[in-house]
């Protein structure tokens, strides 16, 4: 079995936003209204003198126990055997329950206007109908043996992608060592995006 996961090293992310650009071009997201499948934002975390600034890439966490999947009334959100959570645009009716349920703020809406603008912006737009949208771990690229566009393009190799069911995979080892931690594990969503937050290298 395969269980895809991503590890993002906050120490090596330089905030160049190349991943956002690569993702937008690969997945034709409605960037004109500020909607991205992955988004790198600046973040200050900590208390008092311990406060540190980080570039913080965000995306769908492809949870093993995804609340967006549970809440979706029509089953438009589904999970592949390899753990990737996807949306069937033909079955999505745009109720936005998934956006309400997602603690990672990963989902946004693609509208009729976005399709019209997308054709002008990207030329050959693959999407034909509106629906909710989010990161797919570039499932179409993985199926061809390639890495997700954001991982492929990351300047500082901050994003690493691998298979958690493969013990020799560096991603598995980082997760197993506890260096890489998921966001909000207490919610029980069991996310498959992990972050390395090295306190020693603050600044």
């Amino acid at each position: 079995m395969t269980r895809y996961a991503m590890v993002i090293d906050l120490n090596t992310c330089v905030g160049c936003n190349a991943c956002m650009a690569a993702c937008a071009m690969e997945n034709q997201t409605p960037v004109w209204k500020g909607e991205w499948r992955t988004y790198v934002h600046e973040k200050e975390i900590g208390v008092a003198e311990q406060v540190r600034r980080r570039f913080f890439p965000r995306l769908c966490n492809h949870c093993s126990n995804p609340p967006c999947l549970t809440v979706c009334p029509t089953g438009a959100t589904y999970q592949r055997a390899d753990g990737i959570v996807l949306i069937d645009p033909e079955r999505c009716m745009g109720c936005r329950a998934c956006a309400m349920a997602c603690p990672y703020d990963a989902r946004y809406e693609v509208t009729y206007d976005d399709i019209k603008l997308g054709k002008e912006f990207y030329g050959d737009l693959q999407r034909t109908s509106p629906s909710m949208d989010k990161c797919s771990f570039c499932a179409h690229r993985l199926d061809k043996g390639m890495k997700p566009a954001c991982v492929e393009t990351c300047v500082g190799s901050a994003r690493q992608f691998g298979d958690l069911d493969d013990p020799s995979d560096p991603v598995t080892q980082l997760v197993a060592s506890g260096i890489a931690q998921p966001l909000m594990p207490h919610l029980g969503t069991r996310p498959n995006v992990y972050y390395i937050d090295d306190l020693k290298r603050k600044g």
Partner: protein
Amino acid sequence: MNIEAFRKIEGQAFYALAGLLGLVVLIGFGAAHYMETHGHVVTGMTNQIVWGLPHVFAVFMIVAASGVLNVASIGSVFGKPVYKARAPLSGLLAIALLAGGLTVLMLDLGRPDRLIVAMTHFNFKSIFALNVILYTGFFAIVAVYIWTMMERKMHAYSKYAGFSAFIWRLALTTATGSIFGFLVARQAYSSAILAPMFIIMSFSYGLAVFILVQSFMYLWNGLELDPAILRRMKNLLATFAGAVLYFTIVYHLTNLYFAKQAAFEQFILVDGGIFTTLFWVGQIFIGTLIPIALLLHPTLGANCKTVIWSALLIVVGGFAQLYVIIIGGQAFPLELFPGMQESSTFFDGAIHYYHPSLPELLLGIGGIGMALLITTIAVRVLRFIPQDDFHHVSKEALTD
């Protein structure tokens, strides 16, 4: 004035009212079309405030639809004659309000044209899918219930239909409250108390709506409602309003007990701006304390106008309460790094702002227009006006 002339004027007034309500509905459809075409980017809704003003209207109507059936339940299930005479109107209002609420919800979907998908593909883990079944079933059960009440041959089955409707509406409101109760992505929700709280809210809103509609119908037809009937209803209304207050207190005290919820409670109760104002002024003062005081006042409470005004205040308070629950609940962020100070350009740890737009308001009002239009036409076509027959109502039945 002779009967002929009166009927002519009354008929003209009916068409004027139906036309006005039809216009309100059409404006609502227009607003929905505008939002659907351009997307929610033209509204106040964002990725953070996912559900906005239309949901406040929709949830109010859905919750009130369930509660308004209480009048019929008290009549059929608990055998109170005064309420029994009002049971058909209660059933009609339940259907009309649910239709109005669901219309708003459907038109607010990103793809309302795909509603059929929701009716044919079910994810049974989803509380929303369960709600689709419960709403559809509610229409069917209440329609059968009305039939058993209005068709003489079916009277024998009325009690069974009423009992089924009573149980079904409890399930429906439980599921509506659970929409929020099952959400872990906001500090405000993920609480088991929301389901019973929604049930008691439905009792209060539903009865308030019923009193308002009933009063308007009596006024419209030049009839006078027996003060004894309104007196009984006002006692019940005050009890329900008090029960909502009780659940609200328990909800907030429970939150305050948990340290992780302290910041959220601080936000809603103390420094949440519009949400704090709506909570204290809208929900607690205008929507709860004033109506309870008026309804229980020994002299003021006996006045029909006071009861009607109190019902109106409870409706206003209901909207304020749902605004705080639905939008205030989304405005407060989930804590990403508990115990840490944080600021980010991705709205983490930041209060989310929401400015309702005109199309959202028009869609919500359109839903109310839809509910009232259905009621107006149905009352005109069928005999839904309460038929009180005091010869058969014992004195005791009016005094408990």
